[in-house]
């Protein structure tokens, strides 16, 4: 549905998108995960024909975004990061306006507006001015405006920014339900948990470049890291315990860090009985234990060296 090849877009000296390539299949929810300024919005702008690329190519539903912008726009819906709504108008009027712009009229328009209001659970508030809506309601309407012409692909650019956890959860449910009806979704976010729970595949983007690509498990495998086990033991036992652990198979690292024994291994859970047995044999016990499994955040930290919310 979406094919991006070696895409480049610069603003002056800033290379916002740098040799970016990826593809999104039909019915997929594809996440572009990256910090602010990583190039996510620029990528969506190019794919939605609002910005021309400097180099490379991109196609949506088989239409080249540079050569056939009209055909691309008919197949896509775009939900911008901002609340791009007419606040003084009602929810119904907002939807009707964009429906008319996309050529809907009469009973078709009315039915489509009603359907979207139901989908967004806004039917009861259809005739209220949007300015009186909560943040979550506005966000849901913002998404519906991108769907008014029944596109094949929906671009969602950080659609949950600035709303509470409950409202976010409703929006993610909404996206899942739309996806279940066959909608392909390109979803940008800087929230790890959203990407992790919503997306079928994730592309991690930083400085305009694609740093990693795959589903969650693939990405974690790509990280090449092991579980991290941190153990608080009596001071006298630290050095012998570290030496013993370093000799075990599958342990890639065992040493003292910040007064604790830190062990890197393939399977932290399997290591624990052995460690406990070793300490017991020396008449010692465990004071504190922490096992850290690799996750997307550790992957991202490894790739970019930055926390995602920076």
């Amino acid at each position, binding site marked *: 549905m979406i094919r991006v090849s070696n895409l480049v877009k610069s603003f002056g000296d800033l290379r916002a998108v740098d040799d970016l390539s990826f593809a999104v299949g039909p019915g997929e929810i594809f996440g572009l995960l990256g910090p602010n300024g990583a190039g996510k919005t620029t990528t969506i702008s190019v794919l939605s024909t*609002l910005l021309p690329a400097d180099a490379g190519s991109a196609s949506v539903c088989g239409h080249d975004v540079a050569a056939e912008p009209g055909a691309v726009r008919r197949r896509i819906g775009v939900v*911008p990061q901002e609340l791009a709504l*007419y606040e*003084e108008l009602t929810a119904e009027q907002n939807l009707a*306006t964009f429906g*008319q*712009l996309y*050529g809907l009229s009469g009973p078709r328009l009315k039915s489509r507006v009603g359907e979207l209001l139901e989908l967004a659970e806004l039917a009861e508030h259809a005739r209220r*001015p949007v300015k009186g809506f909560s943040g979550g309601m506005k966000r849901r309407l913002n998404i519906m405006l991108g769907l008014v012409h029944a596109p094949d692909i929906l671009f969602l650019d950080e659609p949950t920014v600035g709303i509470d956890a409950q409202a976010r959860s409703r929006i993610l449910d909404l996206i899942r339900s739309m996806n279940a009806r066959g909608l392909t979704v390109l979803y940008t976010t800087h929230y790890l948990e959203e990407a992790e729970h919503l997306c079928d595949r994730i592309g991690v983007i930083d400085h305009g470049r694609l740093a990693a690509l795959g589903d969650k498990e693939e990405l974690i495998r790509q990280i090449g890291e092991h579980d991290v086990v941190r153990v608080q033991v009596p001071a006298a036992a630290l050095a012998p315990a570290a030496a013993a652990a370093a000799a075990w198979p599958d342990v890639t690292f065992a040493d003292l860090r910040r007064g604790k024994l830190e062990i890197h291994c393939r399977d932290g859970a399997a290591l624990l009985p052995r460690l406990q047995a070793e300490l017991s044999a020396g008449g010692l016990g465990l004071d504190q234990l922490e096992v850290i499994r690799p996750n997307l955040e550790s992957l991202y930290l490894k790739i970019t060296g930055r926390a995602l919310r920076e």
Partner: protein
Amino acid sequence: MNTGVIRALVALHVRQVAADRSNLFWLFGMPLMFTVLMGMIFGDMGGGAPEAPEVTVYDESRGPASGALVAALGGRESYRIVVADSAGSWELARSLVDAGRRTASLHIPAAFDADLAAGRTAALALAYDPDRASAQAARTALEEAVLRLEYLSAGRRAEAGFDVARFDSIWRDPRITLEVRTLGRLGEEPPPSALSGFTSGYQHTGPSYTLMFVMMFMLMSVRDVVTQRRNGTLRRLRLAAASPWLLATGLFLGPLVVGLVQAAVLLGLNLLLPGMDYGDSPGTLILTMVLFTAVSSALALCVATFCRTPGQADGLGMTASMLLASLGGLWWPLEVVPGFMQKIAMALPTGQAVTIFHNMIGRGWGLAGNAAHLAVLAGMLAVLLVLAATRFRRLVD
């Protein structure tokens, strides 16, 4: 051209305006308040004595005999003489009587003085409205003046004493013939402007405050465009509307439609004010308002492309409307400002539009008389449209 997109964009603007009820005050309430208040300050509203009705003299002869005739007609209390200017014509002078805007019109042909000097019969033509006392007075005065002129010209010089034979000869064989044509709205009340002075009071404030508030409301809508640009709705419209030209056309036509409704309501309500009418050329009135409103809408779109924040839009929009209104003669008649200020006014759409209104109301001029001003407004519209569309395209592309 995708008319569906344009209709949707126009409907969007109308919905936006209608959604905020306070707009009703800015569109209609405030202008009417200003019109009445300033009309009372400017003139003669509802209490002052009307000026004498006008008799137009269209003197093509411009010789001593015609001059003496015009002089003899003057100095009366029941009417006042207005010598038609070079832009006029005998047909226009007659049409003004027919429309009830002049009490009578006198035509002195170009050969009048020459015919009298050569001893030939000289002709005069009078068009008058017999229902009006001032017209009767003018006719009587004219007949007296003609008789006196004949008497004097028959004797070549004024002599002491009355020459009965000469008078008898003039009576039997007059050398000046007077063709009288009855015109006017028989049995109808003349329009108020036919009895009042040249665009005073409400006649000035009615049209000029209509023009000012139409333009001001449109320039206030600059904020809407800037807000749409900032909150992403303009980008959303761009995605849906397909081309920047189409989008620009919709953003131009939306305010134009609202402005025309505002103008129609205000001009209609103004007719309830004392002394108010817009002349006899509805075509000129409509064309003027369409052109002026279109110029204002194109200007607003153009200004919007220069603003980055709603604050800038408010400041620039308000400054532009205040300057255009004051310099263009919407706050006071242009007749009271120095010559160079009048020239500045003619370079502005406000000055052109208010001059057309003055010509319609005070002179009864229609399309032909106002053609030059209408052409200037059309030219301004073309320039502003090109500028607005070009800048807008750069903004959204």
